[in-house]
């Protein structure tokens, strides 16, 4: 006998990370102007070239209009009603994590992020970003031994200005798009990672982003540079408190891979997605792009998108070096009234470049899930190869799933395959599993897991487990 599902209990289960940390912060006055940008830059004691770079981006941003082409609806965003900087108040300069505010550490504890010493055994180096600033980076000593630089962006700007000057904006220029320009102007912190020549990064690197303050936006910037023959695997996680207003998150991530280098970038995104009537939630407008500059370089994006009221995100790879490889694996789950317009761009420039795209979309309740992808083969990309697969699953009758794949081929030697399908969980599958004694939730979870398996297996183990749990939690109550 299968235990009947307590519907109320499941449907009303709330967002686990929706708590607010009561911590003293120093927010900036709301609004955006050159003055605010100067204040941000000053606050972070940045060198002059950074301020100029920010102002250039801001001036360009003012000439741009918010893009209207994505397939979702939302009210206008008032860019003057956002506070562009918010940081936990620091008393003095901190020397070690022990001096970090207890409240703050507790927050990350509750989120399950191993920041403190006793948890460092987990073997993952973490950079934790709270609102606008990085609060602590673990394992720096061990990484330094290997020659790896892993620190917050502010630290990198003051300690490694030559790298910043050379690479910041080299993949996503400030003029790239509306949100990238905004980010370039006001970005507050983020992670910086540099893997020197021939080094295989001994640890998984990880950044954890948390938006806490109300009415503030988070604009972080991540830059990863992998020199010749190096390897790094990088993870990113995100959460935010449950609030009634929408908050803006406009991040930029840039990856640079030199000859024979490999970068693996994984994301588990679980921003607050709003309540079931669609109030509140994070607007997640992110520009992520990697550039395979060297020959035989490799960049792979793996993402599990399970949160945010609106997700607008296209992790891309520019395959410039000959024989370079780009990969994109994605699971996007939408429920309640979430809207996701996500996918990838693979730009083939070098000879014999290869790309693989596997995208799985699951749409439930009243949500809207879109895959939008571009595969572009430039005239120079002889022998380019692409395989794309995007599958959608619909659960319930009020959601929608759309696919917009753009394939542009300008070289006659290219070989491309694209396939997409849309389906539902069939009654036969469910009946089979239920007759074997699985309950409704268990059966759905099993089927969804199988559906997403190709993507999950690309994630590092800990993340893979977390991602499966996350999907299970999100799907509870939406089936049956």
């Amino acid at each position, binding site marked *: 006998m299968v235990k009947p599902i307590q519907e109320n209990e499941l449907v009303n289960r709330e967002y686990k990370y929706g708590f607010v940390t009561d911590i003293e912060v120093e927010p900036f006055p709301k609004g955006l102007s050159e003055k605010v940008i100067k204040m941000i830059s000053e606050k972070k004691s940045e060198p002059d070239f950074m301020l100029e770079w920010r102002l250039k981006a801001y001036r360009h941003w003012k000439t741009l209009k918010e893009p209207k082409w994505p397939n979702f609806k939302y009210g206008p965003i008032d860019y003057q009603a956002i506070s562009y900087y918010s940081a936990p108040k620091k008393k003095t300069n901190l020397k070690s994590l022990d001096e970090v505010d207890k409240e703050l550490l507790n927050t990350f504890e509750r989120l399950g992020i191993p920041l403190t010493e006793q948890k460092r055994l987990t073997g993952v180096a973490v950079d934790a970003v709270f609102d606008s600033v990085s609060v602590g980076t673990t394992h720096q000593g061990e990484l330094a031994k290997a020659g790896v630089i892993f620190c917050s962006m502010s630290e990198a700007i003051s300690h490694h200005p030559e790298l910043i000057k050379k690479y910041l904006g080299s993949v996503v220029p400030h003029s790239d798009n509306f949100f990238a320009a905004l980010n370039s102007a006001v970005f507050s912190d983020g992670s910086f990672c540099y893997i020197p020549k021939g080094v295989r990064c001994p640890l998984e690197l990880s950044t954890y982003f948390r938006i806490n303050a109300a009415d503030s936006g988070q604009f972080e910037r991540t830059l990863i540079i992998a020199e010749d023959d190096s390897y790094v695997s990088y993870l990113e996680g995100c959460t935010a408190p449950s609030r009634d207003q929408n908050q803006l998150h406009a991040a930029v991530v840039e990856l640079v891979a030199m000859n024979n280098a490999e970068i693996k970038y994984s994301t588990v995104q679980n921003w607050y997605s709003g309540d079931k009537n669609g109030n509140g939630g994070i607007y997640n407008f992110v520009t992520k792009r990697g550039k395979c500059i060297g020959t035989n370089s490799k960049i792979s994006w793996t993402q599990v998108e399970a949160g945010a009221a609106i997700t607008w995100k296209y992790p891309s790879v520019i395959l410039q070096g000959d024989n370079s490889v780009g990969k994109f694996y994605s699971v996007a789950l939408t429920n309640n009234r979430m809207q996701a317009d996500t996918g990838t761009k693979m730009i083939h420039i070098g000879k014999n470049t290869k790309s693989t795209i596997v995208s799985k979309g699951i749409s439930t309740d009243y949500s809207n899930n879109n895959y939008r992808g571009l595969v572009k083969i430039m*005239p120079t990309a002889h022998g380019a190869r692409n395989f794309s697969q995007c599958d959608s699953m619909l659960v319930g009758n009020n959601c*929608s799933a*759309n696919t917009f794949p753009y*394939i542009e081929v300008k070289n006659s030697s290219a070989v*491309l395959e694209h*396939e997409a*399908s849309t389906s539902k969980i069939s009654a036969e599958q469910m009946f089979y599993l239920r007759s074997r004694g699985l309950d409704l939730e268990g059966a759905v979870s099993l089927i969804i897991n199988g559906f997403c398996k190709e993507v999950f297996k690309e994630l590092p183990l800990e993340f893979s487990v977390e991602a499966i749990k996350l999907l299970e939690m999100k799907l509870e109550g939406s089936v049956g």
Partner: protein
Amino acid sequence: MIVKNDQLSFISGLKEFEILVKQESPLWAYNLRKESLDRFAKRGLPTVKEEEWKYTNVASLKEHQFQIASDSSKMAQLKELKAYYRKEEINLVFINGVFSEELSNLKKLPKGLKVADVNDAALYSQKEAAFVLQRYPQDQDDSFIALNKAFLYRVAFVQIDPKTVIKPLIHIIHVTDAVKSSVSSFPRSLIMLGKSAEAQVMESHLSFSDDTYLTNALSDIVLDQDAKLVYCKAQGESKNAFHIGTTRVWQERDSQLDSFSLMTGGKITRNNLNIVLNGSGAHATLNGLYLINGNQHVDNHTAVDHRPPNCTSTQLYKGILYDAARAVFNGKIFVKKEAQQTNSYQLNKNLLLGPDCRVDTKPQLEIFADDVKCTHGATIGQLNEDEIFYLQTRCIPKSQAVEMLARGFVDDILNRIADESIVAKLNKLLAEYFQD
């Protein structure tokens, strides 16, 4: 009535056209032209900034002056036309957009079939209002539909009574022959099948010259309950011509459409095929083929709108590109919330045989119902080296081996057409590519 404006700068002979139509037009036609012209003037030619025209640039239309054709007397190459013409079939021939009575054979029509070029304006007006206007709101017309309506003059009109099966092929032939200067023609057809009627209709756009001209065609097809139509559109325009055409199909319950489109002529071609499945149990097959070389550009847009439950649609578009040809495919499948148990399939295959070909393909699914099965796919590639090598080891020269394999690629889709007369006509248009 027609005020010359910037948007219309590529069309000339407006005054002559006005005089021509005034003699015979009823008021409704006058109003339709006027409204449509205003609409076009407001919209102008589409630009590549519009999503629907992202990959096809029609700005070069403005480099020409297309005279509205009104005279068919100077038709020269009748001999070539004969190759597409069978006496036992029902032929409607239009020369430069004008109906040619002596070339058509509409004397002995089977019972239940009305075929006319519409001088019979009253009939047309009534039908246009009843069948087309109420289904397609005018304000949603795109630029080229509006342009076609703005120059409404002659209409190929096919109506089949309920429960009537018409065996012979109904062939609407549009020939353009720009004797004097660049001409423009605006072919319009209206094909209506009553309940449980069956027919085969082919529309050919031909030219036996290499003139520069503009064809802007609009065809409307309405299939009533349980009607069955085999429809083929063959475009073998001159290699310097512009062809912009839209076919709209409206399908009621249990009706079946089996359509095929061949695009092989034209310098810039845009072919829209929009299907609305409005009654449950309806089925549409959309097959297409394009073979282009030189600097030709072919853009196929299809849209299938699944509205009620239990409809099916299948699409297969194949194309071979030679030299520096460029192909665009955009296939949209919409599945509305009520359209449960929809089954929809779409595939676009491109074979690149030239050194500088370009392909832009965008299969697109928009699904709002959960109990559906929809798949789409696209492939772009070359011939298999092993297959060519195998044929070469059998003493077949490489060029011939390539041709044989290309022929196989084409036959895969041509063989899906049951009617031999249609296949024969299509093969004639492909003669340039295959020496059979």
